Structures are given as C-alpha cells and as structure tokens.
C-alpha cells in the first residue's frame, strides 16, 4: 500500500465512543447516532460522556442493513432477508425482491421518501454467510429501487460480486455502489441516462459501506484488506470446495472481521510473532481501513489499523454534527475519526 493508502495508525489513535459487541450500520437519524449490534438497534447520546448505548428496538434476527430517509423514514434489513420500512407511521414489510425471496439485504438507501434503494449481496447466501459467496465466486448481487407508494420493484443493476454499500449522491441523480468481491466502486445513474461506470477499481481491500460527508465528499469503509493468500485460494477451486465442506467458516482462508482470537485460525509466515513482536506489516486476514474520496471520487486520504492492532472490520459509518463515526465490527467499538475534510 502506498500513495493515498500509505499506512498510518489513525484508526488506532481515534477516540473510542463506545465499546459494544460487533457494531454495524451506523447512521445519522436527526442528529443522533443510531447503529446495530447483532439483533439490537441502538442509539448513542453523543453529548454526554461515557453514555451507554440506549436500546431502541430488538429484532428476531441480526440486523444486516439500516437506512434513514427524509420525513422520519427508516428501513431495516435483517439477516433472514426481510426488510422493514417505517414511513409516516406505517410499517411495510418486503420479503420478496423481483420474483424471488429477498435473501441478502446488505445495504439500503433512500432516494427520497418514496423510493428505497436495496443492495442484494447475493441470491444464495445470508449476509452473515457472505464469505461463502466469496468462496463460491458469487456474482448474483443486484441493486433495486423499491417504490414505497405502489410497491413496484425495479432492478437497476445485476450480476454484481456482492454489492455491500450504497450512497446517493446529491441531486439524487446518481448512486455509488461498492462491489465487494471485485474490489471496485460502481457509479449508476438512477434515470438510466448513462451506462454503469466503474468510478474506482483495484481497491486494496474489500469495500463495505459508503457514506457522504457534509462537504460533498464520500467515505468508503473497507472491512478487510486484500491478501495474497486469499487471492491464491480463490484460484484453487478444489481446495476451496474442500474447505467449505470440512472447515468451520470462522477458520477459513477468507477476509475476516477480526483475527488473532483463536489458534485454529490460519496463520501466514509473515504473521509469526518473533521476539514477542507482531509486525504491523504482517499479512493478515483482517485489517482496519477507511478511505476518503474527493469530489470526483478519487481517493484522498486513508485511515488504518494495521495487522498488529485490533480495530479491524470497519463496516459502516456516518457523519453526525460534523464528526465522523465508524463502526469497527471486528474491534467491537465505535470510533470517532478526526476527519478534517
């Protein structure tokens, strides 16, 4: 990693806002920080110090995606594939997308109060089993627009390698979608006036959620860095098939939210502790990485938590009152990043 990706310790130096199990899906709801932790929807008071997260609601399944829209609209996707939308007092449930059962809602976004964008990561796996999709070289992801007034559903892009993040650009003409397995960001125009374009490719990590900043820039969360051993395993079809068959998913050679927890995890030579030192540049299946994209989507700066640290698995974030918050799902904490954009 070099250039804008030159490693630093900015995520390790960032202040911990709260420590909570596997935080994800941070959003700004009317100036408040909302996020999920497992099946819980939580709210954090940013004004009082040491405030504990406050439980807003609990679901049967793990929350896989959240979006807040204008006029108090709220959409929540669950690991079982269901999407709940709360809109002007009404609850709507979407169990289907197109003519299929909705399987993997990885990211949601409101275009306006009537239209909701849905990223379906894969047609075959749940969001919590996403590595299975990677190991099967999945490319069944799609992006949809749901019209909340009449329930119509419109697919605007398909055949994607696990779309995992979405951001609506101002003027609501265009969206950016992060395509996780292909390490790129796609630009899609909502009115179909322009073809799908790749705005950023060959990313050094697995892109997750995107979120806008107040100054017109976009933040890109990457939940793990690319690893040569993983890329090698992705070419070894038979080995992968055996691994899916015989090995527990948390011990796969695959991008992980956190590592170093258990001795059954794979280890690469560079990661061997020598003289009680774990090298920061050691190859690792997990990594903490956040990238800031400029107005024309070119990367400007990055924030890292390296192999020897544990604030890994940055999955989502949002801006609340000009402060940037990100969830470290692997590090079990929410961080406030000093983002001087």
């Amino acid at each position, binding site marked *: 990693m070099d250039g804008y990706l030159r490693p630093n310790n900015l995520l390790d130096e960032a202040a911990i806002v709260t420590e909570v199990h596997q935080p994800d899906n941070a959003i700004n709801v009317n100036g408040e920080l909302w996020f999920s932790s497992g099946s819980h929807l939580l709210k954090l008071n940013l004004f009082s110090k040491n405030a504990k997260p406050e439980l807003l609601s609990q679901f049967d399944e793990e929350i896989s995606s959240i979006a807040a829209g204008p006029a108090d609209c709220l959409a929540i996707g669950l690991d079982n594939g269901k999407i709940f939308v709360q809109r002007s007092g009404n609850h709507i449930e979407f169990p289907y997308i197109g003519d299929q059962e909705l399987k993997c809602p990885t990211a949601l976004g409101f275009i306006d109060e009537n239209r909701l964008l849905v990223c379906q990561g894969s047609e075959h796996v749940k969001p919590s089993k996403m590595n299975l999709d990677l190991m099967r070289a999945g490319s069944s992801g799609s992006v949809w627009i749901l019209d909340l007034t009449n329930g119509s559903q419109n697919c605007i892009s398909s055949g994607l390698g696990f779309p995992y993040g979405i951001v609506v650009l101002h003027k609501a003409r265009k969206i950016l979608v992060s395509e996780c397995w292909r390490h790129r960001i796609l630009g899609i125009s909502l009115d179909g006036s322009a073809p799908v374009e790749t705005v950023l490719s060959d990313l050094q990590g697995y892109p997750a959620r995107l979120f806008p900043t107040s100054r017109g820039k976009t933040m890109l969360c990457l939940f793990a860095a690319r690893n040569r*051993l993983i890329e090698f395993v992705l070419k070894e079809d038979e080995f992968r098939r055996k691994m899916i068959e015989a090995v527990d998913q948390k011990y796969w050679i695959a991008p992980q939210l956190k590592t170093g927890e258990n*001795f059954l995890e794979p280890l690469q030579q560079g990661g*061997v502790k020598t003289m009680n030192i774990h090298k920061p540049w050691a190859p690792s299946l997990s990594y903490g990485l956040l990238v800031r994209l400029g107005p024309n989507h070119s990367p400007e700066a990055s924030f890292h938590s390296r192999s020897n640290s544990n604030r890994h698995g940055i999955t989502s974030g949002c801006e609340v009152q000009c402060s940037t918050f990100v969830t470290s799902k692997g590090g079990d904490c929410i961080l406030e990043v000093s983002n001087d954009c």
Partner: protein
Amino acid sequence: MKIYEAISKARYNYVPDHILGELLTKRWADNVVPLLFLLLTIAVLANLIPGFLSPQSMSDSGRQLGEFLIIVCGVSIVMIAGGIDLSVGSIYAICALLAVAVVNLLQWPIPAAFAVSVLIGATFGLLNGLLIGYLKLRAFLTTLITFVIGRAIYDILLDQLGTPIQLTYVDSPLWDFIGDGSVGQIPVSLLFTAVVLVSAHVFISRSRPGWHISAIGGSRRSAFNTGINVKKVVCLTYVISGASCGIAGFLFGARLNGTGPGTGIGLEILVLTACVVGGISLGGGRGSIVKGMLGGLIVLTINNSLIRMGYHSGTNQMVLGLMLAFAVILDIRWLRNRHKVLDKVYVAPVYTSMNPALSALPESGTPYALNSKLSDTELIGAGEIEGPEDVILDEHDHLYCGTRHGDIMRFFAPEYKESEIYVHIGGFPLGLAFGKDKSLNICVGAMGLYSVAQDGTITQLSAETTRSYLSVVDDARLRDPNDLDIGSDGNIYFTDSTTRYDAHEWATDSVENRPTGRVLVYDPKTGKTKTLLRGLSYPNGVCMANDGESFFFAESWECRVNRFWYRGIKEGKMECVIRDMPGYPDNINRASDGNFWMAWLGMRTPTFDLMLKRPATRRRMTRRLPKDDWLFPNINTGGVVKFDENGNIIETLGDLGGKNHPMVTSMREHKGYLYIGGILNNRIGRLKLQGADANWTGISSYWGDNA
C-alpha cells in the same frame, strides 16, 4: 475422492521432485546447460558434416583444440578473478614465432624453446598484471593496449625472422613428436593440454591462491578485508594467462614450424566467447576450468565446422557474435535469478493425511484443553536474549540458554537478573543436556554436536554421520541438530530434524512435510556418529525414559511421540506412544513426579491440515506467493503438556493470546519451578509448580545426587 487422494499421494510422495531443487544447489549444476549445448552441437554437426567424427578429423581438431583450450584456461582464471584479457592473441603469436625462431635460428634444444616461449608469455602477462593489479588500470583498456602493441611487435618480428625461418630446416624428432605425434590415437598436444587443465582445475578449486582468486572475483572489497593480497593475486592471474599463451604458442610452433601474418588474429574474441558460453561470469567470482573447457569445445567445434561447411568468415564472426551476446544475456539473467529459481523449485511438498485430533480449545474439556497458566510467568532476561530454544539448570541452580547470536548465556541464581555470556559457539544452540562429567552438551543448528567442559573449553563432538548412497544433498552433514539426551550407556542420542533445510528455515520444512529427519547416536568412546532411524517427520525433542533402556522422541509434523529402545530385550524396537495431538511437539524433558514434560511449538489448524492433503496446491503456493504470505501451522500459540510413560496426558498449560509465550519450544523443571523457552521468543518464563518436589533437579534424576 479417495482415488484422487491416492493418485495425489503416489504422484507427490513417490516422484522425487525434491531432487531438482537439490541439484540446483550444487555448484556444478551451472555446467549442465553448456554440456547439453555441446552435446547438441556435436549431434547436429555430425549429421551435417560427413566424416565429422572420423579419427582423422578428430585428431586434426584435437591438436588445434589443445592450444585453444590452454589459452581459454588462462583467460578463465583471469575472468574468475573479475578481470579480462584481450591481449592473448598477440602474446600467443609472439610466443609461437619466438619458439620457432629459437629452434630454427638459434638451434637451441627444444626444452629451452619451451622455456623461452613460456617466459616471454609470462613477461607480457606480468606487464598486464603490474598495470592492472598494482597501478589499478582498467583491465579492458590495458589489455587492449597490450594487444595492439603486441601485434605491432609481432609484425616487426615476423618481418625480420619470417624468411630466415622458412629457409632453415630442423631435424628434431622431439619437435616433430610434439607437433605431429600421437600416443595411441591421442595427439601429444592434447595430452599436454590435459595435464595443464587438470593442474589448473586443482589449482583453482583446491589451492589457497586458487581460492583467493575466486574470493577476489566474488567481492574484491571483502577479499581485501579478509587480508588477501588483492594486488598480488590479480597480477598473478595475468601472469598465468600470459604463460598459458606461451605454452599454446609453443605447441602451435611445433605443429606448423612457422607462423604467418594471420596467426592469433581474432583469437581473443574466440576465447572470450568460449569462457562466457561455458558459463564463466563476466562479473567474476563464478566459474571453473570445466566451464571454460566446455565453452572452448563448443566454440571451436562450431567455428571449425562452419569453415568446413564453406561459409565465409563473415558468417563465422556473426555466429560467434550472436553466441556471445546470447551467453552474456543468459549469464546476467541467470546470475540475477538463480536464487529465485531455486527458491521457487526447492520446496517440493508431499501428501500427508493428518488424523483428526482431540480439541485443544479451552472450552473443549479434553486433557489437551489450553489455558492461560503460562501467561503470567515470572520473566527472566526479557528483551536481553533472543531465541532461547532450550533452557537448562546446573547443580548451583544457574540457568543456561542458547541465543540466536550463537552464545550460551548463563543467568545467576537465585535472582536470575545478572547474566553473562558463558561461551560463544557461533551457530544457533538448540538442545542442551548436562553430562555425567558436568559438561554441557549442545546441539548447534547447522553445525553439529558440541560439548562445553566446566572450564569453558568447547569441543566439537560430531558434525557428520554416514552418508547415504542415493542422496543428492550431502546428508552426512548435520543440518538441523535439534535436541539430545544422554543414555545410561553414556552415548548421546540426538535428532537431526531435516536434511532439506537449515536450522533457521525449520518452519518451511512443515510446508514441504517431507520426512527426512533422523535420530543419531554419538559414541564418546569411538567418537563416531551413527544413524539409528531415518525418514522421520521432523524428529525433535529427545528424553530418556526412566527404565535406562529407551528414550522418547517427538516427531513434530506428525504430532506424535515415539519410544525407542536402545538396549535391553526390546533393543531396536520403536513404538508410538502418543499420536494425533492437536499441537506440534518440540522438546521433551523429565518431570519430578516420574512423568514427562513436552513443549508444543504450535497448533494444528484446519486449513493447514487440509493443505497437507493437497501437495499440488502447496506447491503452487510456494511458487506463486512470496514466503511471507505462505500458509503456516499456527506457531503463534504453543503450550506445555505433561504425559506419563504410557502416553496418557496428565495436564496441559498454555498462554492463550500469546502474551509472554506464544511459541514454546522447551521447558525444564528444577526445584519446584518450570522454566520455559521459545526459539522465536526474547524471554524465559518461570512458573511455580503446585505440589512439585522442591528438591528435584534434572541432573540428580540422571546422575544421582552426588554427581
């Protein structure tokens, strides 16, 4: 999939892939390419030219070849020292002319003519040598100047002496015999050449000045720093080159009894091409007489054949030029990439199927379940020592350990705060054991078995065992002597973990997983070392059982512990005592309660176990990925396991999270404490053992209290 695995096993375990890598480690492996090229050339030309291999043709070529090879030999020596000699053609011509003149005009005896020829050549060489060696002029320009001046001198001399020589007749049977005679079918000049080549080969590969020449070519500065007289040796190489021109010139003179205006023209290019085509590096340091000889054969065969096939001299030059260019490119590419090629092809994985093991997860409830009892040990020498693979305590409770700097450190009881370098060994000390005479016996990585007497004198006990007949690498050498123990018969039983990798690359051996380890025995009475067992999967720790007839030893990559009887009624028998452990065993030592401690250097992971069944995948991994990215066993978590004589597991200690002891390679119980070492760690841990005998020591357990 059973069939697939059987095929995979047959393919990777019985086809000896590893031999290719082992061949490439040999210095002579570079010769294979020119040798194949030579055979190909001969095969092709024998088909193209009728009578190419006929005795008459061979004999004619042989005489010419002899002279040529002698010069190639001289220039090879110059090039091995990193120089170049362009003046050989001129010197050769002058020597030939003067040899003929001395015989024809002065009527001196033939040996005198030989002496004159060699002396004149050596003098020209000395001129080159003084200018290049002592005055530090550029070899290329200096020898170019000598070449031009030498040519001018030759032309003048030829003008003066040419006609008188032609008008005289010499009647000397010896002169004719050297020029035209044969011993059997072999021309005399070729025999002459053989003598020169053999002497030169012995000189360059077996003598002190020869080694100095190679050292200077390899790195002039390092050679100077080690005290080699660089100026003198460089000068010497040019003298040798000049003298070889003298010998060749003499042979030429004897063969033709005269010289012409064209004698020696273009010779320097031929010789240079021969050296480079043979594989002598232009940068110096790499090369041999054999390489020069192969190159000489190739160049002269092609050159002569082209002439015989009737091509113009332009074509000839063109072919030589192209060959030179190709050889130079190949030389540079190969030199730069040789180690990369070797790195890529050396690891030759085999198929290994690991049986499932009991879990070592803390919540599993098995006897292997790891805990964090080792996390908060009392630390000794933290940050001061690097790589205490093994630890041991003497009768005064002082603590000894090896370090990767090649020292044995001693920490003083009872505080273990003060330390000293007990002795400096040089290699990486691994296993330690006190003998009956209180000498410290040490397995030193990549060196052998050593002993340090109480007064600090170091003795090498063993550095080699018997060589096996079919091994390409020299398996007589001890490559990774790992741990040792002393039997009741006084013999030292020790392991040499692998013949494929050096001690510091021990973990790479797990990726290959080829069982090449051995258990050896050193007999102090005869001073001889014998191989007891071979073909083991990284044999590691050794510990004598309590019966005085057998010992336990660990086979790391197979995750098992074996017991071997070295005397008694079960002598020569081996039994597996513990099999299919979830961790990789390292050193084994006695415990105070009659049981045994065993270190785990790392843990098996499901992905690595799976990878072991897929040698092709592992092979691709080692070829495509840089080493840092290779999948390894999880050697960031280790532990200590106590087992009884029957192999039952009694307890397991661990350091989950790897705070102080991520990898454990040894442990030693002493007076109620357990001392813990790790080869990649920078500290020794000390743990108070609950309920252990506070007076028990390892030394008294082996040699009695009065020892």
